[in-house]
């Protein structure tokens, strides 16, 4: 629960500096929700796919 505040501010701050909010996704899945997990991954994949490959703040290793 405490963690939520951290993630809420982090996500907002990342978005503020220009890193798309959809790159950081916060959710919950309980132990009995296999299907929700699959839905989360489907949704997250779509969201992230829509943003294209990450480039911001990405360190390129020579």
């Amino acid at each position, binding site marked *: 629960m405490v963690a939520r505040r951290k993630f809420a501010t982090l996500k907002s701050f990342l978005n503020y500096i220009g890193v798309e909010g959809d790159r950081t996704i916060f959710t919950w899945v309980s132990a009995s929700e296999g299907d929700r997990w699959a839905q989360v991954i489907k949704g997250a994949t779509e969201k992230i796919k829509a943003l294209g490959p990450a480039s911001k*703040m990405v360190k390129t290793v020579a």
Partner: protein
Amino acid sequence: MAENLANKEWEPKFVAIVCNWCTYAGADLAGISRIQYPTNVRIIRVPCTGRINPFYIVKALQSGADGVLVSG
């Protein structure tokens, strides 16, 4: 990036940092139930979402993850 977007073959790779007791178990259950989903995710198991240092998320982004999923 425009090029990449045009390239339909591109598949994002993102990291999921998940709680052992809830989401990880849920993901196991998805497996036991053979529920199919995209292959784009790489799971890092932690004992609890409370353990997730925000720094991990930033480091994941810096390491080139196309996204970071945190799930409790």
